[in-house]
């Protein structure tokens, strides 16, 4: 029988208080920068430091879309990151299934390889990647120019490898693939083969099996893989910085960064509003991804 003595009880209360105190301090450390962005974005006369606004206003948000090209940046970010996310979900869904079910010799080497790829720093890859994409881009231009003439540039804006949507989408998607493949492989490992075998017995082809059986079963895994790909690609700054240059392709991180570099005319209210617009989808996605966080990391711990 557990008998709790008064001294033990006091001990418990004391360490509970200690837990509250440390957690409050750490939480304040984590939260203060966010207060500034939120408050400054609603302040008619925002400054670089935290202050209580004299007048609350939404004018900063309006100016993001009227004075700056906020709408264009938002569209570009959503289009590029959304495209990369969909691509990652499709490829990782298929690839993860293959990695989970195959008995071929390449299974283990491939799994080791994608773990190793995850540790390579992207900054170390962008130089050769830039050269490679430049070569592809020039080749594409050389093919398209004789056919489309002056319309080549508008077409290349969509299909180009450098300073085009396609190149950035492909590279962003590739960088998210290893983690997504890993998540989907682990997910399919946990799905019993009975359903597929039943479908196989009924004479379903691979395509039918994927469409009717696997996709419905795999939705939670796909959601997790997609959310992680979205968050990582949405927050990425390096790849758009290197692969985009035209103003009409600029994404939110570039818009924010370059607006901030115009030292002599920094408008903190506008920047804070822009930062908040850029921040919001990331936080929402993080909220949805929360319940997968522990699984994804804990799965890694158990191996």
């Amino acid at each position, binding site marked *: 029988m557990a008998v709790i003595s008064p001294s033990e009880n006091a001990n418990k209360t004391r360490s*509970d208080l200690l837990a*509250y105190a440390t957690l409050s301090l*750490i*939480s304040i450390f984590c*939260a203060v*920068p966010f207060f*500034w962005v939120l408050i400054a974005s609603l302040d008619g006369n925002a400054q*670089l*430091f*935290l*202050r209580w606004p004299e007048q609350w206003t939404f004018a900063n948000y309006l100016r993001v879309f009227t004075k700056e090209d906020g709408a264009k940046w938002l569209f570009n970010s959503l289009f590029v990151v959304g495209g990369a996310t969909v691509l990652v979900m499709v*490829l*990782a869904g*298929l*690839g993860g*299934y*293959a990695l989970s*079910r*195959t*008995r071929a010799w390449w*299974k*283990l080497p491939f*799994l*080791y390889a994608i*773990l*190793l790829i995850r540790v*390579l*720093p*992207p*900054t*170390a890859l*962008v*130089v*050769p990647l830039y050269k*490679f994409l430049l070569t592809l881009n020039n080749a594409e231009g050389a093919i398209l120019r004789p056919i489309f003439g002056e319309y080549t540039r508008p077409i290349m804006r969509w299909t180009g490898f450098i300073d085009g949507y396609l190149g950035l989408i492909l590279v962003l998607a*590739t960088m998210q*693939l290893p983690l997504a493949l890993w998540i989907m492989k682990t997910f399919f*490992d946990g799905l019993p083969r009975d359903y597929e075998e039943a479908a196989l017995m009924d004479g379903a082809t*691979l395509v039918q099996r994927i469409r009717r059986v696997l996709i419905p079963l795999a939705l939670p895994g796909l959601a997790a893989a997609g959310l992680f790909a979205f*968050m990582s690609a949405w*927050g*990425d*700054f*390096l790849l758009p*910085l*290197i692969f985009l240059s035209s103003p009409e392709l600029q994404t*939110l991180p570039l818009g*924010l*960064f370059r607006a*901030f570099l115009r030292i002599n005319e920094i408008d903190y209210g506008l920047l804070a509003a822009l*930062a908040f617009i*850029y921040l919001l989808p*990331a*936080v929402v996605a*993080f909220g949805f991804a*929360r319940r997968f966080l522990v699984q994804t*990391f804990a799965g*890694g*711990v158990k*191996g």
Partner: protein
Amino acid sequence: MLASPNSPFERVTELSMARNVHERRTERQLLLILLPSLALLLAFVIYPALYSVYLSFTNEALTGAAALRPRFVGIRNYARLLNDAKFWNALLVTFLFVVGSAVIGQFVLGLISAVALRRRIHFRRLFSSIILLPNAAPEVVAGFMWISMLAGGEQATLSRIVSFFGVTPADWLQVFPLSMIIIVNTWRGIATAMILLTAGLSTIPNEIYEAARMDGATPSQMFRRITLPLMMPTILLYMLISAVSTIAVFGLVYALTRGGPGGATELVSIYIYNQSFTAFQLGYGAAVAVVALLISLVLGIGYVRAMKVEV
């Protein structure tokens, strides 16, 4: 007469042959649906990684004479690397950055949060949500927020907080640049440490603690003798994961300081970027990149072994 076509023996071989054929077809289909992922990884990761090794032996540049006719220069880039004070500075800054933020900052605060959140206290979900928040902030937004926090002048947020405790305000990013980026990266990564360590803590059975408590062990004794030893595998894995991801940090620090002032925060990742896209020395930048790739790969092999891949 030999075995009739309908003998049981014959039927079994027929079945197993059919299964074999079927299995081979399935394997082919599986390889086929993995192929697009494989192609992307080969084209945009493996090939560039190998190509950077090649580039590091050339004088490839984005502008000037070398841009038109790049030459093979042997190990000249690597020889230059050895005598390049800025390169060694970048290595040192990166090392201090990794040790300060990943090994010490994030780990200590993440462990404290994980241990505290295991207690049955109120607002647990609220606390952990707030601690997770910095992880969700995009790199540039995080950098922008901290430019505000750390700005110079008496009215700036950090200066006002510390002057409350009697510390003289300063232009933090100018005076203590490296310490500041370590603090900012700690802020950003507490959540990762907390999540991993929470998962590790939850695998330690409560009975051990109860038995120790029966024997009159103090909380600090239990922490040192039970929690830490049993957490060692998790801690090792965390250290490897956070070290490689901290080496890869670019946007956060670039948005804050762009490597300055005077190279004080020039991480290897920023040095590669500056050499390649500001000085346009692709060949030399590639040599630095190869060094970064090798360091990450060595840590990565440790990580792969710690993961114990299940097939």
